């Protein structure tokens, strides 16, 4: 423990007894000390200042850095036990653990501020560990035709068999112009953008500019300003966002290539200085007063040797009412819809040498196995299945539904609907936008301050820019359809994604942002990228209330 005092002393920091106590009460005092010294020396004080460190300052940083103290930890576990009387074990992802933090500092997706570190919406309250208590040893398949009304089920958008691109050059022109026009229409509704002009219409002496523009490129100048190359269908314009104007500079930091925004700017000679950026954004959505349960799944990866079959079977037993305590079975009973947002199977040849990681090496047999498993789900639950990048579909988005050719056995089941990716459904009044989530990669890997862990923040950004995969030419292959189906035309009640294998939830302006995690353990690929999945945790909207069920110890 003298090490700690010495560590601070070396840097000219004197610890008060209280401060010392606080520090050693943290989970990893050594680690925390390092961060603390760094914080103090880089932010509040200069390198040569002598500092006397008091307990309250330590407390402040414990909070700011989201550090766990040993006592706090215990308390939470106790809480869990006493309140819910569920499993003793602490749920893994209600807070970011120390390990993950450490990992975060290594990866480049290191979230910068406190908000990014903790997703507090998945709180203890709605994270439920399913009891290891089986009610009946046998599957109790509901084979009789259910007496359930699906009049309020509606497929709002399915792009299967609606691919009109022929891969010609003019398709590209049409595609991006369609994106521009669709998003323009949304931005136009903003009061500041009611009157706007085209770049070609800018007059010689004009000083005030109101334009709707697509981002072409964002650069940081030598002096630290942001210079953005914009365009519309009449030409190009460079707009400078000065770091002296903090609010608009911050906005401009968020700009990504190929998104469409409204800009107000001052024109001084040849240079335009940005004053405001208007993102398309979404309105607050009212509550849907849903009276049923919707279960969200994705990335099941049937056929992979890392597919968690036991947990998935447990999940099916639960949904059939054969598993969990009474309260938990009650939740299951209320379930009427289930979505599978891509990657139901692991597919074949998706990445090099995948063959070695496959338990089932035939794509049809993988879907057969999926049918065997999903076939055990009681038939009064409607299942909506969209494709992901592992499915047998084209890779470029939008992806048509998995063709019957490969998934014949699933097509045979009466309660299953196939849909494209993205796809849009109305489930008894709750409108769900299903998007597998390739576009998340573009942000998590390519854009500062975003991470795979906090994909809820990326989904929030999708809504703000009203597009699911705006960045062209990076990780998400886009088909140049005549219409840009990845634009979020109609605001949903639920935005459901998968792909990254990390559960997140956030309520943003009344819209549920849900990433439904996975039923696969960490893959080789994820190991390399230090992505820690949250397997076998299933989100559910139970009469509109978010809950997350855990089917693994």
């Amino acid at each position, binding site marked *: 423990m003298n090490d700690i005092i010495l560590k601070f002393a070396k840097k000219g920091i004197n610890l008060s007894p209280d401060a010392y106590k606080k520090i050693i009460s943290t989970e990893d005092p050594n680690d925390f000390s390092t961060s603390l010294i760094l914080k103090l020396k880089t932010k509040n004080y200069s390198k040569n200042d002598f500092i006397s460190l008091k307990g309250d300052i330590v407390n402040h940083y414990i909070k700011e850095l989201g550090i766990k103290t040993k006592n706090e930890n215990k308390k939470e576990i106790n809480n869990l036990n006493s309140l819910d009387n569920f499993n003793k074990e602490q749920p893994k992802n209600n807070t970011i653990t120390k390990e993950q933090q450490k990992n975060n500092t290594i990866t*480049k997706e290191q979230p910068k501020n406190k908000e990014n570190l903790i997703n507090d919406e998945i709180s203890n309250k709605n994270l439920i560990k399913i009891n290891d208590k089986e009610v009946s040893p046998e599957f109790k398949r509901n084979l009789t035709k259910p007496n359930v009304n699906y009049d309020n089920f509606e497929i709002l958008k399915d792009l299967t068999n609606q691919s*009109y691109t*022929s*891969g010609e050059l003019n398709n590209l022109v049409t595609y991006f*112009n369609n994106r521009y026009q669709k998003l323009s229409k949304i931005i136009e509704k903003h009061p500041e953008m009611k009157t706007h002009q085209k770049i070609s219409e800018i007059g010689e002496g004009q000083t005030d500019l109101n334009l709707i523009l697509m981002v072409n490129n964002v650069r940081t100048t030598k002096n630290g300003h942001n210079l953005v190359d914009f365009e519309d269908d009449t030409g190009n314009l460079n707009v400078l966002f000065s770091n002296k104007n903090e609010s608009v500079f911050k906005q401009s930091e968020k700009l990504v290539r190929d998104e469409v925004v409204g800009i107000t700017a001052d024109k001084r000679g040849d240079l335009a200085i940005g004053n405001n950026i208007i993102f398309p954004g979404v309105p607050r959505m009212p509550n849907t007063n849903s009276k049923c349960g919707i279960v969200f799944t994705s990335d099941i990866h049937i056929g992979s040797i890392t597919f968690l079959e036991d947990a998935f079977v447990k999940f099916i037993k639960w949904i059939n009412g054969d598993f969990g305590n009474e309260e938990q079975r009650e939740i299951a009973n209320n379930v009427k819809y289930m979505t599978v947002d891509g990657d139901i199977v692991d597919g074949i*040849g998706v990445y090099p040498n995948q063959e070695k990681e496959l338990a089932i090496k035939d794509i049809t047999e993988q879907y057969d196995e999926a049918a065997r498993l999903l076939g055990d789900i009681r038939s009064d639950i409607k299942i909506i299945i969209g494709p992901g990048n592992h499915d047998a579909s084209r*890779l470029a988005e939008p992806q048509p539904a998995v063709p019957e050719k490969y998934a014949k056995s699933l097509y045979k089941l009466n309660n299953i609907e196939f849909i494209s990716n993205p796809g849009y459904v109305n489930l008894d009044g709750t409108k769900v936008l299903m998007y597998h989530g390739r576009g998340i990669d573009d942000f998590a890997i390519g854009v500062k301050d975003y991470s795979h862990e906090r994909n809820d923040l990326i989904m929030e950004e999708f809504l703000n820019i009203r597009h699911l995969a705006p960045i062209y030419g990076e990780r998400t*292959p*886009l088909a140049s359809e005549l219409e840009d189906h990845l634009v979020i035309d109609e605001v949903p009640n639920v935005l459901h994604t998968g792909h990254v294998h990390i559960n997140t939830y956030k309520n943003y302006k009344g819209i549920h942002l849900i990433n439904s995690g996975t039923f696969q353990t960490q893959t080789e690929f994820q190991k390399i990228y230090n992505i820690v999945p949250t397997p076998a945790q299933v989100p559910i909207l139970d009469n509109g209330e978010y809950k997350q069920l855990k089917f693994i110890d």
Partner: protein
Amino acid sequence: MDYFKRLEQETKDLYEIANKARSKGLDVETKTEIPLAKDLAERVEGLVGPEGIAKRIKELENDMSREEVAFQIAAEIASQDVDETGEKEAEKKEQLADQGLRTALAILTEGVVAAPLEGIAKVAIKKNFDNTKYLAVYFAGPIRSAGGTAAALAVLLGDKIKLATGLSNYKPINDEIERYVEEVELYESEVTNLQYSPTSDEVRTAASNIPVEVTGEATDQIEVSHKDMERVETNNIRGGALLAMIEGIVQKAKKIIKYSNTLGLPGWDWLKEFTHEKPKEDEKDDENKEDSSPKYIQDIIGGRPVLGYPSEKGAFRLRYGRSRNTGLAAMGVNPATMELVGFLAVGTQLKIEFPGKGTCVVPVDSIDGPIVKLKNGNVIKVDTVKEAKKIKNNVSEILFLGDMLVAFGEFLRNNQPMLGAAWCEEWWIETIRNSKKYINDNKNLDLEKLETEKLSAKEAFNFSEEYDVPLHPNYVYYYNDVTIKDLNALIKWLNSFKDSFIEGEVFALDLSYQKRILEVLGIPHELKDSKVLINPEIAYALLHTLTNNLDESKDSTIEALNDISNIEIKNKAPTYIGTRVGRPEKSKERLMKPAPHSLFPINHDGGSRRLIAEAAKKGNIRVDIARRKCPECQSISFSSLCPNCGTPTIKGNPKTRTINLGAMLKKASDNVGVRQVDEMKGVVGLISEDKLPEPLEKGILRAKNNVYTFKEATIRHDSTDLPLTHFIPSEIGVTVKKLLDMGYEHDCYGQPIENENQIIELKVQDIVVSTNCGEYLVNVANYIDDLLEKFYGMDRFYNATCKEDLIGQLIAGLAPHTSAGVLGRIVGFTEALACYAHPYFHSAKRRNCDSDEDSVILLLDALINFSKSYLPSTRGGSMDAPLVLSSRIDPEEIDDESQKLDIMSKFSLEFFEKTQKPYKPSELLEYVDNVGMHLGTPEQYENLMFSHHTSSIHAGPHLCLYKRLNSMPDKVEAQINLAEKVRAVDQRGVVEGVLSSHFLPDIMGNVRAFSRQKVRCTKCNAKYRRMPLTGKCKCGGNLVMSVSKGSVTKYLEISQNLVNRYPVSHYLSQRLEIQEFGINSLFESDKSKQSSLDIFFG
């Protein structure tokens, strides 16, 4: 006269001519711009300077190792006293540190590679946050060309300079350390894998301990998140710095510790942490264990056939030895094998299982050729190309590919543990030489004659009994390749006809399944009217070897066989080498794309063909160009001396100017008296910093002589490198008279040269170029002569009408990534598409012979026409340019690869016996003789012998099948047909391999590329990351896609064809099917599908 002196004298004569031409003032400089360097020290001075350093290097070389000299020089240069004060002083000190580092690095890289020029962007003296000063080394991308060790040594040199100049250590702040961590990770995920993937903590350790700042220029357009740092100038990845830190310091930690100890540099002990990391790499290997197949076969590429699965029976048999055209990574194969498989021409690359990774194939006809089964059922041994050609179309199976002649040096070079030697004639002879009887009988047996003599079977058996030696290899078959049970079955079959065998007559057996055993034993026989016929000699050998039934409980067939045989039967082929065809051979003129005749800018006025005459029709054109001005009479020109008054002119700054090209072209064409200028091509713009154009006359004369220029105004011809230590005058087309003129005196056995069939040792800087290189160089020589006569007003020099006229002329050899030309002399020509030269010559260029290629330049062309001012101003621009000419090859000063070249005429019995155990090659050095053992003595240049003769260095095909077939489907078809024939290859595996490692990834990659492609303007060539909303280029031109539909579907059809015709795994065929679905969905509108259905249903 001594060979080297003679070369030097002739070189000096050419310098005189070049300087005289240059002195006319028509070029950029009035003197030739290539300094001549006799040795490493002079090369270093010529390449990076400073002036006079060569002398100091030579002084130090007397009692210091190369490394010590380098570090001493670095310290001496950097710590010089400076006269300047204040800001100037700091500047000067930085400059000296920079110079010191570059000079020292040049010494360490033998003054050949471009790394000291291009790999180091700059050296700076910067401030720590505690106000102490430290040294920062700025690395650039081309540091790669120096290799990991040299890159790490550059950092160590920085440390030495730091010490010598009293600077402090670099003290990185945490953000800077984390920046390295991020960059390494980003580099690996976004750019390319590093040879060694360090953990984040390893990067932290390295970054916080390296005492100089390892930084550098941005190399990739990828931004980091640790932006805008005070001391790191770029926000992009610093690729050069990462290479130096990771592939240098971290990966070569062991070496660096050793160097820091011997050079007395303290503070590198922390590196020990990295030397223990080795098990980690092993762990990695373990992970890959599932895929433990050797590297060469992991990727099977369309049109590049596999010739043998790893160590598979019937693949190439390992035979130790070196022929006059092997070594330095090139290996010998019987030309009959080359002819038979078609995909092997002289110089074709083979990827191999061991030793090393690759080799170039050269013909050696004194080793075993293939054994094949014909369509009529006969099995024959094919020894000559003639025979191979005759039976080629009747082959149903290639049972054995024949021998591969591998020099011991290849094992040494790759530190490959020894592998069992083939049982062959030269080994048999050694057993006799060492037999008691031979020694006691006073050796009155002519072993040399015996080695080549054809023995009858009876004689062979008698020899073995008499001298107590194993049976002659000619009568030993591949017994160990069949099971004991199989051999017993064969014995049973033979025995049932044994009684009918009459010595000296053909042995006939009724056809039975055991015929297959004869085939895999490699025993020639005929099939006629359901009778298997074996020739009397072979039959004698078989019946005398297989005398009894074998004990099936024995471990190996050979063991069981020796149990019953009273004469020792050796394992004929203990080692088979798996191979796959790699890069095809090449010999072709160097052409830029598109190829200009002149470095004269004409913007886009010359049309798409960039014709200067077409641009000239416009009269005035606007181009970005610099001109020269006479300070006396103010005349404007491009010449270094004023054409008006002869005063040296002053270079102006580049600017967009209007020039009257029409008038200029007319004048130039009048000047050299050439009317026909229609086909002369220029360039769009100059990419050099000075932007000085070449005189138009040079372009006119190049066009006239049908030669093209490269970026720095020389004319190049590229060829695959092959080694040669001895030649036969008749094979390379040189006469005895000419040879004597060139200073050759005797053949390799010391006899005077009298006829054109003697074997003569090649002098180390003499080269044998390809016929087409020779023919191209005749054009170059005519161009030079025209230039001398018509442009400079001097005498013609070469007067060459045919390639033979060029024998004896000097050239410069120059390899990519290097900046030093090596002086060579043409001695003859080869029909092969390759350049045969002494291994030293290739090593001096830092090449070996595993399919490297480089260029030759006619020396006078380089001396007259090369100018540094034409070099591209971009990073890497001075690579592959003759910045200095190395006139003499010293084996001590070239890449030490060539020091491992075998030079003995035979191996000893001990050597053969030791190969049967996996000794390290370094443990067998006492049994071999190589160049390294004669360094510094006259023997380093002469009496280098070879162990296996070859009657021609260009026997066999000169153009491999890959290049003869035009379309990919044809190539794949031929590849698969071959796979079907070669016993050592699994045809299905090849089909699956081509699909899974070439075609499918290609299809998938292209689909991906298609849906995120850029667009390009057809008019101004501008590229757009994404289609602009306007749908047009800014210049108004039309845009086109950069990835066409065709490139996506290119391999789809061939793949479908393969899947339909051959049994491939269901997994693969399904993968292809899914790709097809995806591609159709991208390229076929659902609307058109629907409408056609609509029509169908009426």
